[in-house]
C-alpha cells in the first residue's frame, strides 16, 4: 500500500503509542484530589509543559481540546462572543476564504446565528493573504472588528501564510488573531510567542499523536466564552475530564516533531520535489496548486489539478492500484464539490474538480513516489476519457 495522505492523518509514532498505552492502564482523573488524581494531574501538567515548550508557549497558554475542530470552534466562536459581549459593535469577522471547514463553517454559523458580519480577506493565486489586504480590511473601521482568523498553512494546497506579519497588523489595532496551525505543526517552525497570535489551533493525529486530542494555544489575556460548559477545567474555557493518555501521547509526538523537524523537512521536501517532477513528467498538463516556491508551501504537500479529469475518478483508479491519496476537497453528503480553496484562488470550477493532493509523512519512501510516478500517467489518461460527468 502506498500511503500518500498524511495530511489526512499520519501513523502514530512509536513513542506516542508507548506514552498512550502506558497511561491507558492507569486510573486517575486529573481533577481528583487523591493520589490517583494527583498522579494523573502530574502527567497532564508535564505534557502541557512539554507541548508548550514544543510550541513556544507558556504552559498556561495550552488549552487541551478534543481535536483541531473543537479548538477552531472555541477560538472563533468564543473570541467572537467575548469581544461582542464587551463591545456590542464588534461583530465584524475577518477570515481568509481558504480556511479549513472547522473555521469556515464556524464563521458562517456566526454570521447566520450570531449577527456576525463576515468579510473574506482577498487572497492571491496561491491562496495567500497579504498583510496590506488585512490592514485595508481593518482600517475601514477598526472599532467593529471582533477577530481575525487566517490559517498558518493550507491543508489542500500547502500555501504558507505570513502569519507573524498578519498578527502584527492585527495587534496594531488590538484585534485578536487566531490561526489554525494544524497542518503547520511538525513541518514549519511554529512559535506561538513569536507569532504574536492571540490563539492558535494544533491537533494530535496530524503529527503522529493520537486522534481526538488537540489544543488551543491561547494568550493569557484572552477569555473566550466557552463552547462546552461543565466542570471548569482548562481555565474554565474548556470543561471536560482531561484525557490523560491522549494528552501524554500528544506531548510525546510534539517532542518528536520538534526534535526531528529540520531533518524531516529536508528529507520530505526532497521527496516531495521528486514527486512533483515525476507527476509533471507523466502528466505534462498537470497544474501545480499553491506556491511553486518550496519556501512558500508545506514541505510534505503536493497538489495538482488535471484538466478534463474528475478528482473522484483519479482517486478511484489510484486506489485500485493501492495508491492512497485525496482529492483534497471537502465532501458534502459524500459528493465531491469543487474545493472552496481553489475557487478562492481563482481556479475555474471545472479545473478545480480534477484535483489530487499528495501529502507525505514520516513513513514515506522513495518507493512510494516511484509507484505513483509509474501509475499516474495512465490513470490521468483514463480518467480524462471518462470525462466530467
Amino acid at each position, binding site marked *: 500500500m502506498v500511503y500518500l495522505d498524511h495530511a489526512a492523518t499520519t501513523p502514530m509514532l512509536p513513542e506516542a503509542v508507548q506514552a498512550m498505552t502506558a497511561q491507558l492502564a492507569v486510573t486517575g482523573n486529573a481533577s481528583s484530589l487523591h493520589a490517583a488524581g494527583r498522579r494523573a494531574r502530574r502527567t497532564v501538567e508535564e505534557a502541557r509543559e512539554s507541548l508548550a515548550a514544543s510550541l513556544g508557549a507558556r504552559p498556561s497558554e495550552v488549552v487541551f481540546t478534543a481535536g483541531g475542530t473543537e479548538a477552531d470552534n472555541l477560538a472563533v466562536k468564543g473570541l467572537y462572543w467575548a469581544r461582542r459581549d464587551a463591545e456590542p459593535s464588534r461583530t465584524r469577522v475577518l477570515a481568509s476564504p481558504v480556511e479549513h471547514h472547522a473555521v469556515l463553517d464556524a464563521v458562517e454559523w456566526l454570521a447566520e446565528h450570531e449577527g456576525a458580519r463576515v468579510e473574506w480577506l482577498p487572497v492571491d493565486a496561491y491562496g495567500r493573504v497579504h498583510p496590506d489586504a488585512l490592514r485595508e480590511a481593518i482600517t475601514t473601521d477598526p472599532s467593529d472588528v471582533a477577530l481575525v482568523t487566517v490559517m498558518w498553512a493550507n491543508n489542500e494546497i500547502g500555501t504558507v501564510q505570513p502569519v507573524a506579519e498578519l498578527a502584527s497588523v492585527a495587534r496594531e489595532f488590538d484585534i485578536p488573531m487566531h490561526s489554525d496551525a494544524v497542518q503547520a505543526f511538525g513541518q514549519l517552525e511554529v512559535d506561538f510567542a513569536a507569532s504574536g497570535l492571540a490563539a492558535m489551533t494544533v491537533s494530535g493525529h496530524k503529527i503522529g499523536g493520537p486522534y481526538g486530542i488537540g489544543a488551543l494555544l491561547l494568550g493569557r489575556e484572552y477569555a473566550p466564552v466557552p463552547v462546552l460548559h461543565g466542570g471548569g477545567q482548562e481555565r474554565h474555557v474548556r470543561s471536560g475530564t482531561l484525557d490523560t493518555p491522549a494528552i501524554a501521547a500528544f506531548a510525546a509526538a510534539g517532542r518528536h516533531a520538534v526534535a526531528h523537524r529540520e531533518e524531516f523537512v529536508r528529507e520530505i521536501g526532497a521527496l516531495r520535489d521528486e514527486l512533483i517532477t515525476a507527476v509533471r513528467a507523466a502528466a505534462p498538463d498537470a497544474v501545480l496548486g499553491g506556491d511553486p516556491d518550496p519556501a512558500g508551501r508545506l514541505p510534505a504537500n503536493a497538489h495538482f489539478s488535471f484538466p478534463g479529469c474528475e478528482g473522484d475518478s483519479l482517486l478511484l483508479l489510484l486506489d485500485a492500484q493501492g495508491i492512497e491519496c485525496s482529492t483534497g476537497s471537502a465532501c458534502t*453528503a459524500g*459528493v465531491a464539490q469543487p474545493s472552496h480553496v481553489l475557487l478562492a484562488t481563482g481556479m475555474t470550477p471545472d479545473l478545480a474538480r480534477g484535483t489530487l493532493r499528495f501529502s507525505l509523512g514520516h513513513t514515506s519512501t522513495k518507493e512510494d513516489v516511484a509507484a505513483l510516478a509509474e501509475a499516474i500517467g495512465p490513470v490521468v489518461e483514463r*480518467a480524462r476519457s471518462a*470525462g466530467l460527468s
Partner: protein
Amino acid sequence: MTDAPRRLRVLAAMSGGVDSAVAAARAAEAGHDVTGVHLALSENPKSFRTGARGCCTIEDSHDARRAADVIGIPFYVWDLAERFREDVVDDFVAEYEAGRTPNPCLRCNEKIKFAALLDKALALGFDAVCTGHYATVVTREDGTRELHRASDMAKDQSYVLGVLDERQLAHAMFPLGDTLTTKAEIREEAARRGLFVAKKPDSHDICFIADGDTQGFLAKRLGRAEGDIVDESGTKLGTHEGAYGYTIGQRKGLRIGTPAPDGKPRYVLDISPVDNTVTVGPAASLDVTALTAIRPRWCGTAPTAGPRPYTAQLRAHGEETEVTAETTKDGLAVTFAEPVRGVAPGQAIVLYDGTRVVGSATIASTTRATAGV
C-alpha cells in the same frame, strides 16, 4: 452471472438498500473485482430520511458505504444529480404535464444507470455495472446477451429493464436474478453476511418523491390549473386543480358531486392537456383493444416485419397479457387478445417471448373497445 468464466471489474450500484447490497456481495463472492458506487441523485441531499424511504438521502449513502465496508470493497459516491434531474425528473414532470403517465424507473435505467453510469464505468476500465434488480441475463452461444425474467416471477423486475439495448445488456450484471429465494431469505442472506441493511424497509414508489405524494410534487412543479371534469358526452361534472394530477384508470379522488346515472363508479378515461379537461366514465369505457407505441428499444435485434404473438406487460407489477405486435414506421402497433384496462399513454409496454424480453416502447395512443373517447 455466477457462470462468468473470468474475473471482471464490476461497478456495483448501491442504493443503500438490501437488494443492491446483497447483489454487490454476491458479485464479490463470485470472484469479481467489485467497486461500490452510490449515485447521488438528489440535488438537495442534505436531509436525512423523512417519511417514506427515498433513495437519495445522506442516510442511504451512509448505509451503502457501510455495506461496502462490510463486503470489503472500495466505495464512492458519484454525483449524477444534474443528469438525473434533466433526464428523469424533468421528463417525469413534462410527461405528466402532457397528460401522459411516465415510469421514471425505466427512464432511470435507460438514461442513468445503464447510460451515464455505465459509460463512465466503461471509460474507467470497468467491464460491467451490477445492480440489485431481479432479472436474468443469458449469454447465447454467439456471445450475445438476452434479458429474461427473474427465476422467481413474483419478484421479477425485467419490466423496468426492458429499455436496455444489446450493448447495455452486454455490460449488465444482475446477481439476484437467478435466485429462487423469497425476500425474507434475501434479508437472511444479508444478515448472514453482516450487512446491517438486512432489516431496512423496501423502497417503493418514486425515489425522488420521498413522501409518496406525487400529486403534491406535481402541483409544486406545475402549479394549479383549474379545469373541467366532464363525462363522455362532454357534460361538466366538476372541476379539477390540474389535469396532470390524474391518471387514466384512476377512480379515487375524483370529487364529483353528482353520481353516475347508472350508480356505478366512474374512472378517468382521458386527460387532455390542450383544453385542460379530464374525462370520466364507466369502467367498460376503459377497455383497450389496441395501442400504438413509439421510441422502441430492442433487447437485441428488432423483430422482423409482420404481426407476431407475444406476451406484454404494461406496468411494473402488472400481469402478462397476450398480444399481437408488429413494428411500424414510428414504433409498434399492438393488438390485445382480450381487452385490457388502465392503459395510459406514456406508460411503457414491454414485450416478452416466453421469459425473454424482446423490447419495449412508450405507449402513444390507445384504441378503446367502446366508442366515445
